[in-house]
């Protein structure tokens, strides 16, 4: 469903969801794209089906290794308004790992990161702030220097 087709009052509630007042963040410089190592971050609540499901409002994340069998990925995102057909038919609709692999093979990017990260959307960003140091350290150890963040 397109956002503009969402019935009221859900549409207005989502549109006017309180947003924190963020100070502007300067852009970090980096290498040309063809030399970068790219990671994905999703807020689709994706995880291995053997992992515990996400709990709304809790500060947590899951790691999705590039090496895992992507057929084992499920979502425990609680929203009833986001499309499920896309993820059922093609994970790349929300988590485009195959597109990144193609770009790596073509030399359009340097490499694909070893690990990617999943959060549950519809959670106040403040809840994630305490986790960022840990994730950033893991990404630096993985030599990541480019991140694509995708919501649902």
């Amino acid at each position, binding site marked *: *469903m*397109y*956002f503009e087709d*969402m019935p009221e009052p*859900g*549409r207005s509630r989502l*549109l006017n969801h309180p*947003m*924190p007042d*963020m100070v502007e*963040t300067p*852009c*970090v410089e*980096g290498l040309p*794209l063809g030399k*970068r190592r*790219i990671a994905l971050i999703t*807020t*689709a609540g994706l995880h291995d*089906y053997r992992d*515990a*499901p996400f*709990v709304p409002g809790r500060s947590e994340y899951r790691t999705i290794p590039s090496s895992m069998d992507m057929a084992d990925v*499920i979502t*425990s995102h*609680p*929203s*009833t*308004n*986001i499309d*499920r*057909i*896309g*993820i*059922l*038919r*093609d994970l*790349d*609709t*929300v988590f*485009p790992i*195959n*597109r990144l692999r193609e*770009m790596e093979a073509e030399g359009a990017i340097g490499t694909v990161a070893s690990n990617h990260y999943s*959060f549950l959307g519809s959670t106040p*960003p*403040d809840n*994630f*702030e305490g986790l*960022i140091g840990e994730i*950033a350290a893991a990404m*630096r150890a993985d030599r990541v*220097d*480019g*991140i*694509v*963040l*995708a*919501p*649902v």
Partner: protein
Amino acid sequence: MCGLAHYLEREGLPTVAIALIPRHAELMRPPRVLSVPFELGRPFGAPEMPKFQRAVMDHALGLLERTDGPVLETFPRRPNEHGASAVWSPPIEKASDIAIGEESAFVSALKAEIAAIQPACESWVAGGGRRLDRISGRTSPEIVDLMLALAQDPSIESPMEGFPIELAAKFAADDLKHAYYQAGLSQPGAVTDVGLDDWFYNDTLAGKLMFALCATLLKSEDEKVRGFASHAFVPSHQRENVPEI
């Protein structure tokens, strides 16, 4: 999503965020954003359209080299995915009108309905389709028993340690719904998420159970449970059909 972009960039990691609701990105102003005019739940456009997904990814990653932020660009087009596809039909006939109050008859009919969708579910999996019905770790008949018990008595204990009852019920309910969606998607023809919802909620007994569960939890004395129930079991476009909402 935009908050995460701020936090990670402050850690020295270059980011580009996709935005499905442009206003949120305009307010949050992360370093680099590509706003996309796609359906909620589809940040890269549409399934089985790799060229289109790649175009979105090329655009997004192209922004990563920009340092003149905050950068906010909009992807210029929507995917044209359905074309001239065949008409979709559900995998089972419309359910007969059995009231949940007729407990044994309803349970028998619902379990028969679940058995009836199994061949379509198996066909979906055999064809390489993804299984999303694995959140709660319960079988469909177990899920029915849990949902029915909760619909009749909201004070029952959670069967999942560490998860409140309403969340355990939500995981179970989503497993049940996903099994129906998997069965639905095994059918030829194009169907939208709203089309699948229309079938599930209005033409199946499982959908009727979902409405009943939602209605029961909306009467909870616990404000948190009521708030959760108001959006967790029934999508916005079906909410007017919840009894006594």
